[in-house]
Structures are given as structure tokens and as C-alpha cells.
């Protein structure tokens, strides 16, 4: 089995709202994939479709080479962690985790002592040993999340699906749990898909990131791929910060107005285009060709980063420029900016 999950040309519509418009994705065994996108992009719908909680209007989902439409929810063996965890509040932690095992048909059900052994092992795995008798209302958010994860893992799922796994937690707990989940995934090795709107989370955690926008996958790739080589203007703008310049391409050069700003271009059709430049790819330089004159209007500091906002004539929005440590322009100073790297997209 080379592919764990195959998503084939899925289309899904809610009333008049097209949630997914032809989505295809292959997920490898043991892979950790993030579905990243703004709210309303269809990422949660896609996750629920893989789980079987929604039905596709068109297209199909395969586990290996089994068409999931033929499988009942039980036979899909999906470990699903809900955004609000969906723990059973009238059951204690041990009963929550054992629920999946006890729900098996009698002949496949482990005996009671085996179940309690498994529960104990899972609680150790999620680092909550000894909490068997607690009720969900007596746990913190992070603990509930880990109980939900243990409950999902108890059924030995084919695929682990996490819906905004860190959405309801505060920043500090999120960071800790993220590192812990990465480490756990390395140890347990389940094929895992998680949904998030937090790009930092997706880029840090996932082997591959699928970026969704308006019901379509814009790009799939490793964190480096999608960040350094965005396939579409949306990906470029969605990931990290970026400046946008309207340019015109002639030959191997891009012109802002009548001033060349970026050279050495290959494989372009020429004509109007948008040039996307990240703040770290703008450098203040002494007078040279291929430079953009502007005025420093604002200086900010964000942790280790120093940033200048530079107004350029003919551009409404000021350019964000990351400053090297030895550069210290003053407000009002005229500077020249060199674009060291940019992504060019033909204007729509």
C-alpha cells in the first residue's frame, strides 16, 4: 500500500454555497499533513468528508484501495479529535478512552482487564497517568485535548484526523502541545491530517501543507516549498508577510513605472504582472541600478526584528522592509531599496 488516503476530485455544496470545488490529494502512510486555509475555505468540510461525517456530491475518498463509500463509520476506523474535544461528560476519563473498545461487537471486544491495561497505556502515552477516575469537567483544556487524543488512538485508527487541535487553548499550552504532538507522531506514526488556520502551526508541525482557498487546494508541499515557492498569489499573500508591487515585464526585467526593479527573469510572457516581495527580501542599498527610491516613514521593533515602512512614489501602501542590524535609517530619510528575491505572477 503506497498511499494511505486518496482524495479524488471531491465536490461538496451546502445549499447554495460550494464548500469544495474539485479537491484531490494523496496522503502517504505515516505522513502528517496540515490543511491550512482561512475560515470558509472548506478545510473542515474536507476533514469531515475523509471521516465520513459528510458525503461528497461528487468524487470519492479511498483508504489504500478501498472506496470508503462502502464502509460504515465504524469500519472506517477513523480517530477523530473534535475542536471542542466532544468528550462524554458523564463518563470518567477511563470510560471515555475505553468507549471505542467497548463499542466493538462482542467477539472482537477485548476482555475487561485488557481494556483497562490499554487505557492505562494510552494515558501514559498522552502523559496523563493516574487520571482514570477524573471527569472531563475536572480537567484543564490541554488535558481534555489529550484525553480526546487518547480516546481516538484507542481504536487503533487507520487515519488520525484533528480539527483545529489547538484552537481552544491558550498560547503557552499551544506551543507545548505542538512540540509534544510532533514528538508523539514520530513515535506512534499514524497517518495524520489536521486542520488549522494558523500558518505557523501548519508550517512547523506538518510534513506537508495543503493550502485551501474558496473550496480549492491552491498548493500542496513541504513548509519550504509553499513558503519559498508559492504557486499562486493567494499562497504568497496568505503565508507570512509580503509586499505587492504592480510591475510590467519587458524581456528579462520587471519595471515599476519606468524604473527597472528586478532583473534576470526567465520564462515569463511579459506584460503586466504582480511582484510579491517579502520584507526580508528588500535591502537598503547605496546608489545602484535596479533600486527603488523611497522615504522612511515609520520604524517599528517586533522582538528581534526591526522594520521600516518605506513610502514609494506611485504606490499607495508603504513597503515593509526588514532591517539588517547595522542599518539604522532615520524617519524621513530617503533610501534606495534593492529587491533581492521576489515572486512574479501575471496580472489576472
Amino acid at each position, binding site marked *: 500500500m503506497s498511499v494511505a488516503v486518496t482524495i479524488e476530485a471531491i465536490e461538496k455544496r451546502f445549499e447554495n454555497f460550494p464548500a469544495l470545488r474539485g479537491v484531490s490529494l494523496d496522503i502517504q502512510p505515516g505522513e502528517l499533513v496540515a490543511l491550512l486555509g482561512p475560515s470558509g475555505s472548506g478545510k473542515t468540510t474536507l476533514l469531515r468528508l475523509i*471521516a*465520513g*461525517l459528510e458525503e461528497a456530491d461528487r468524487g470519492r475518498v479511498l483508504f489504500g484501495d478501498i472506496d470508503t463509500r462502502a464502509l460504515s*463509520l*465504524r469500519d*472506517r*476506523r*477513523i*480517530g*477523530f479529535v*473534535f*475542536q*471542542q474535544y*466532544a*468528550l*462524554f*461528560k*458523564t*463518563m470518567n476519563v477511563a470510560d471515555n478512552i475505553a*468507549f*471505542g473498545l467497548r*463499542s*466493538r461487537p462482542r467477539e472482537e471486544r477485548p476482555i475487561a482487564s485488557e481494556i483497562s491495561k490499554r487505557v492505562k497505556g494510552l494515558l501514559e502515552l498522552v502523559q496523563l497517568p493516574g487520571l482514570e477516575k477524573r*471527569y*472531563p*469537567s*475536572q480537567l484543564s483544556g490541554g488535558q*481534555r485535548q489529550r484525553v480526546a487524543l487518547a*480516546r*481516538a488512538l*484507542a*481504536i487503533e485508527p487507520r487515519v488520525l484526523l484533528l480539527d483545529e487541535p489547538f484552537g481552544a487553548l491558550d498560547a503557552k499550552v499551544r506551543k507545548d502541545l505542538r512540540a509534544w504532538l510532533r514528538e508523539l507522531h514520530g513515535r506512534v506514526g499514524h497517518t495524520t491530517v489536521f486542520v488549522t488556520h494558523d500558518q505557523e502551526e501548519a508550517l512547523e508541525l506538518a510534513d506537508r501543507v495543503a493550502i485551501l482557498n474558496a473550496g480549492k487546494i491552491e498548493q500542496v508541499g513541504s513548509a519550504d516549498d509553499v513558503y519559498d515557492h508559492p504557486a499562486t498569489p493567494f499562497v504568497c499573500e496568505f503565508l507570512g508577510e509580503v509586499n505587492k508591487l504592480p510591475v510590467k515585464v519587458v524581456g528579462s526585467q520587471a519595471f515599476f513605472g519606468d524604473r527597472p526593479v528586478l532583473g534576470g527573469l526567465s520564462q515569463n510572457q511579459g506584460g503586466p504582472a504582480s511582484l510579491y516581495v517579502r520584507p526580508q527580501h528588500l535591502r537598503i542599498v547605496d546608489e545602484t541600478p535596479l533600486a527603488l527610491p523611497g522615504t522612511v516613514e515609520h520604524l517599528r521593533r517586533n522582538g528581534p526584528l526591526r522594520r521600516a515602512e518605506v513610502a514609494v512614489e506611485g504606490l499607495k501602501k508603504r513597503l515593509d522592509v526588514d532591517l539588517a542590524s547595522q542599518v539604522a535609517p532615520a524617519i524621513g530619510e530617503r533610501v534606495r531599496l534593492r529587491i533581492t528575491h521576489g515572486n512574479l505572477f501575471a496580472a489576472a
Partner: protein
Amino acid sequence: MTTTASFRWREPSILPGFGLAMGITVTALSLIVLIPLAGLFVKAASAGPADIWAVATSPRTLAALRLSFLGALFAALVNTVFGLILAWVLVRYDFPGRRLIDAAVDLPFALPTAVAGISLAAIYAPNGWVGSWLAPLAFRFTIPFTDVSIGFDGKVAYTPLGVMVALIFIGLPFVVRTVQPVLEELQSDVEEAAALLGANRLRTVFRVILPPVLPALLTGFVLAFARAVGEYGSVIFIAGNIPMVSEIAPLLIVIRLEQFDYAGAAVMATMMLLISFALILAVNLVQARARRRFGDV
């Protein structure tokens, strides 16, 4: 009393209003509930021990109390099941006429109970719309090797069964209205989680959906039961009021009053009060325990 030295008023919040709210509560509760009930006890006590015992143990009193409490219990149980299903349907499904049915649930609250009683009596009478259909269904059946025989003689109106029909009618809204908001609040993700973990529908309903609803269901049961125990207006029209058979306790109290046997009426009333209070208190204690345990997630 000096032994209560350790008792302290619960610290009122820093927000004003404690004194006023407490004052109004105590005054209203006293005027409307506590003083009349105390008066009842005083009146009952005026009868003297021998008379109290005579009234309390007379076969007619016991039969009436038994009918009232067992009938109310049965009606409340029926309403618990039926009301839960009705609330579920109203919350979960959308169908034409849903709002109409939702509104109709409250009718037993609004309708004068006498009107309900007369309507039920007319419909369930042997020649009524429903009663005429029930008559041919009569059966009797003796359990083998015993003298116990059970059966249905085809009549509802003017029998203890008629009493229960009326009690079911007036108690239904209590269960529906207490359970409905809890069902509405149930998150569908819990059900989805159960299904994905492999639980079949039956297990999902009994292990996942019902337990959180149980406290509200119990409240609905108690309310329906309490209402049914004290119900008078609708029952007397359908019950037939045959002493020892279909005579309910509230009616017997009224009969005693009409015979100027005030003390006897007060004794019966006090008995009803004590039994009801004990039952309701017990249920509330069970509930308080459940609430402490599961909290709210």
C-alpha cells in the same frame, strides 16, 4: 440556641441587592406557602391522635391515596418516555407543522382543567370516539398457577385507567419543556464522536445522549408527578369517582370539606403533603449529587 454559633450567613456578594432579595423571598414565601401550610398542620393537629389515626387508616382514605400516588407515578412515567420522544422529535426534526405541535404541547397548561376533563370523558366514554374503539379490545388473562388475573375490560372513562389518562394529559408539558432546552444544547459532535468510535445507534442513545439529559428528565418527571398528585379538575369528570375504586385523594378532601369535617380533610391533606415532600426531596438529592459529579463541560 447556642449550638448554631458556627452558622453564618453565606457571604453576600459585593453587588447590592442581597437584603432586598432575601427580604422579598422570605415575605412572599411565608405569605403564600409557609403560613398556609403551617395552618394546615395546626388544623390537622387539632383533631387529636385518635381521630387522626382513624382518618389516616380508614380504607377509603388509603384507597384514595393509593390511587392518587400510584396513578400519578404511572402517569409521570408514561410522560417521561412519551415527553422525551416528543421533545426529541421537536428538537431534531423539521417537518411541516412542527411549530404547531410545539405550541400545542402547552395547551394542557392553558386549558381550564375542567374543560380537559369533560373532553376526555366524552371521548373515552364507552360511546365516545375513542371509547367505542376500545370496548372490543377487552381481554382478561389469569397468570398460570396464581390467582392473579390481569386484563382490560374495554372501559377507560369512569375507571382508574381514566384517572391516569387525565393525569397523563395534564403532566405532558412538564417533561417536554424541561427536556427540550437540554436536548437543544446537546452538541452533535458528541454523537459523531460516538459513531466514529464504532458505537451503534442504540449504544449512542443510551450511553452518550441520554445520560446528560437525565437530570432534566428527572426534573420533568418530578414536576409531572407533583402536578398529577394534586390534580383535581380534569380527573373528577373522567374518573367516575366511585369510592374505593376511582376516587382520588383531592376529591376525598373536598368531600370531607363539604361534610364540614375540616380536621379530617386537614389530616388527609397533611398526609399528601408529607408524602409528596419526601419524594420530591429524595429526587432533588439524587440530582444534586449528579450535578456535583459531572459539572458542566
